[in-house]
């Protein structure tokens, strides 16, 4: 059955082939595993972009296919990051603390170790005790479970409330934005239990792999991100194929009509919303160990809107469009803001791209919405049509 699914969707195979080639190319050129043309930090950037692509295809499914413009998917992404970050921070601090305490004449008791870890982690917010939400932080398995469960449950509850009361369109967008804002504001508090605006840091150090050089760790995360993107792509392509895809797109186009066909529209929306939230959480869990730090500012509503911008520029309603848009805009953005772009001297004024990039992005986004609603993905559609 799987075979026929892939055979029916040649674009999925094309995508997997391109992604595979890209991964292979990066591997051959990277510092750790190949020619050394690509620096470790760039491997990290590429790995992060792959994670962003994963959350972008989730966004595309929920918005481009199901018509729900969610401004909350980056919040789910952040939650995934926090969930895995808690374990990383706990385990690493535990290693350090145990080492420090080992220098004492008398071995430390479990309480002493625990207190020392708590002081180490929560000292910045003036606390020395573990908040309740850190109950599972000692266990990688449980925290990974939370990566899936927390975004999933949050999306399920929020979606159930919102869809049940038939909130649609821009109202739903604003409501999701409000949810995101509420979460970000909550995390900004020092007593949120997640270190307030300090966030979680040092996540690039993977406990148990201290001996492995960062270049190799980055490579491993790059591979993992590529694999996750591939699996996510296949998963979504599978969900969107056949009758399920038919119903999901029908809901986007005329929700009331689908209802009169006997489909319980709310369940479908909830399914899509929750599934994409879970994938967003997984993407975040892969992203933040590469970024090294997560703080509440990452979750702020603006991040979710950027996500929508990427998908829109790439061309929504096409999974590969979301990937292309995200890769294109986020790489371009880091090129501009990183000072890579040469300044433009107009004689009376010098345009510094670090300052003007957002102005450019904002206006080009308006232009895309007005003139190229199909985004970059439209070019591929044209090519496909010409080829036929």
């Amino acid at each position, binding site marked *: 059955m799987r075979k026929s699914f892939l055979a029916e969707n040649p674009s999925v195979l094309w995508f997997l082939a391109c992604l595979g080639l890209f991964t292979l190319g990066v591997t051959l050129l990277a510092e750790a595993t190949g020619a050394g043309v690509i620096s470790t930090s760039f491997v990290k950037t590429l790995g992060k972009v792959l994670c962003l692509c994963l959350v972008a295809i989730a966004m595309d499914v929920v918005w481009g296919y199901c018509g729900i*413009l969610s401004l909350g998917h980056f919040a789910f992404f952040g939650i995934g990051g926090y969930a895995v970050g808690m374990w990383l921070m706990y385990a690493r601090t535990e290693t350090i603390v145990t080492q420090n305490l080992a220098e*004492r*004449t*008398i*071995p*430390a*008791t*479990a*309480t*002493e170790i625990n207190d020392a870890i708590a002081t180490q982690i929560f000292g910045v917010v003036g606390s020395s005790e573990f908040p309740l939400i850190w109950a599972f932080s000692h266990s990688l398995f449980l925290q990974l479970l939370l990566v899936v469960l927390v975004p999933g449950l949050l999306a399920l509850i*929020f979606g159930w*409330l*919102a869809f*049940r*009361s*038939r*909130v649609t*369109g*821009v*109202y739903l*967008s*604003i*409501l999701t*934005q*409000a*949810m995101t*804002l*509420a*979460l970000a*504001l*909550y995390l*900004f*508090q020092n*007593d949120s239990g997640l270190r307030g605006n300090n966030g979680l840091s040092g996540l690039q150090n993977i406990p148990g792999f201290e001996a492995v050089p960062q270049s190799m760790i980055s490579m491993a995360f790059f591979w993992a991100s590529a694999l996750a993107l591939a699996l996510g792509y296949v998963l979504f392509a599978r969900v969107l194929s056949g009758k399920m895809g038919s119903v999901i797109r029908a809901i986007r186009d005329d929700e009331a009509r689908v209802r009169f066909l006997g489909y319980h529209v709310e369940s479908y929306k909830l399914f899509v919303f929750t599934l994409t939230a879970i994938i967003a959480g997984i993407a975040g869990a892969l992203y933040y160990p590469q970024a090294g730090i997560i703080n509440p500012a990452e979750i702020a*509503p*603006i991040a979710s*809107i950027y996500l*929508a*911008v990427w998908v*829109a520029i790439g061309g929504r309603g096409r999974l590969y469009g979301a990937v292309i848009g995200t890769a294109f805009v986020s790489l371009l953005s880091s090129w501009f803001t990183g000072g890579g772009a040469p300044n433009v001297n107009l004689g009376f004024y010098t345009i510094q791209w670090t*300052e*003007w*990039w*957002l*102005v450019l*992005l*904002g*206006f*080009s*986004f*308006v232009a895309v*919405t*007005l003139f190229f*609603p199909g985004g970059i993905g439209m070019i591929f559609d044209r090519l496909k049509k010409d080829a036929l």
Partner: protein
Amino acid sequence: MIRILSMVLALLCLPLTAHAQELQSLLQENQKVVAKPSRKTVGPVLDALVASGLPTAPQFLESWQNKDVYSRKEDGLFFYGAKADGGIALTDVDTGDVVSTVDAKAVKQIKPNGGVRKEIASALVQFQLSDPDIARRSSAVNAIARNMTGAMLAPLLGSIENEPDAALKARKEQLANYLNARFGDDSAARVAAIESMSDDLSVEGRAVLSQILESELVSFEGDAEGNIAEKLTVGEDITRNAAYELLVEQQSLTPQISENELRLALEANVEGGKVADIPVAQLADLSKREQAYDSLAAAGAVPTRVTDTMVTEALETYQFSRVYLEDDADVTSAAAEAQREVQTNVAVNQFFDLSLDAISLASIYFLAAVGLAITFGVMGVINMAHGEFIMMGAYTGYVVQQFVPNYTASLIVAIPLAFMVTFAAGVAMERLVIRWLYNRPLETLLATFGISIALQQLAKNIFGTQARPLTSPGWLDGAWIINDVVQISYIRIAIFVLALLFLGLLLFILKKTRLGLEVRAVTQNPRMASSMGINPDKIKMMTFGLGSGIAGIAGVAIGLFAKVTSEMGSDYIVQSFMTVVVGGVGNVWGTLAGAAMIGTFQKGVEWLNPSNTLAAQTYMILFIILFIQFRPKGIIALKGRAAGD
């Protein structure tokens, strides 16, 4: 007390002419004390000086305090001294004549220490209370208020009768009442004074009551003694540890050893990898550590450990009470009663104050959201750049202030200018972007968001990232103070008035003018409207401009009390949308209701958890999400076909 009172009265009755040499001789009687004053000895001298009623006494006290008094070494006489050419110029303390200038070595400067200077100052206050200069009198009263002592009661009472200034007299009476409540001799008089304070909301009065009610924790071996405020039960009113620490302090029991101290003691006694025959490796366990310590204690190497059982026994032996420092039970119970009444009163007033706060917050939300109520509510166009229009308005105000230095004038210029600037921006945006996207609300949302990003960054590029001030004119400074609890700043009142004005103006425009009629016609049925000769394009453009222009004025108002930054718009955008959605779309009254509800709710949460405005916002948003469950169309919902679902 009565003695001091009579002395002061005598002092006031004395003729102002004084005999020569009187002060000097008085001082000479106490020569040693005056020359080398100490806190313990200075009292009687001060009493004598006050009792003498000499008009020269205050000046002497002041100079003494300021270290301006010198004693001549040869005869021990006192003079006022001032540094002059060739030494110290000496002035006679009685006549005020300059006597001579002597070498600095011939005299000795008298330097009273801090404690003595305080005593002198309080003696001085008694003179100052009746000083002819009102500034000195009121500063003396303030000095008493800052540092209330029983000794001040009598002089204060004495100075009330002849106080010419009515306000100061009332203040003196109030202060005397406080002093009487705290330090009076007569229990009944104190109770009466305390009872009169039960409707006093001032911070000072409340402090007096709580000072009377000051208490300490005391442990008793037998029955509790003294003026007991409350008996404490260990485990309920006081924790075990705190109770035991109290015993350690008051009954000299052996303190418990902390886990850290226990570890250090063990570390100090490691011998050959073992502590008291227990291998070190096993000591990663608290009970093993205690066992090792006890063995060490048995061997006499460390003091015996206070075990939990011992603590329990000790706690059972002793009783714990909170005891008033004030011995008089009548006074404390009257004070407790008065405090209860005051607290109730304060709570009522705080509620009132909070309501004012809530109204003021609601006004701000209303101002921020009312522009949206038009563009989003009436036209159904979602404008994510609305917050940036608010920001543009605020920056317009800032720029105007750079050119017009008079704050009132600049405000008068800024408000219409801000309207024009944002009106133009709104019209431009409608023409260039939004009109291509009617009926595609999600695209409108995204496109206007793109504009919002660009505008924010533009503002950053132009004005920099730091906050810019938008100074309010002087007549908006300060606050309307109703009592010690309730007060509201004029600027908030102004914003409230502005919000009301906007409400009236908008209702007028929408209900009574041609434009309003056409707007309603276009939003309800554009095709019909255009067939009746209304140009829907023009109407939409004007409406959008109007909504944006109002955002600009709101920006000036918000800028007056909040910081003007490029990001200020995004602080308001979500709340503004919430206000419109909660209130009910398409209805200015709905926006008012939404703003009122959100403002009240947020202030309510802040009241429950005052330290945390972030939490208040979080809960507010959660509340809104839930609220929309029950009233998806907002507080004031349009029904039926007009709702257009």
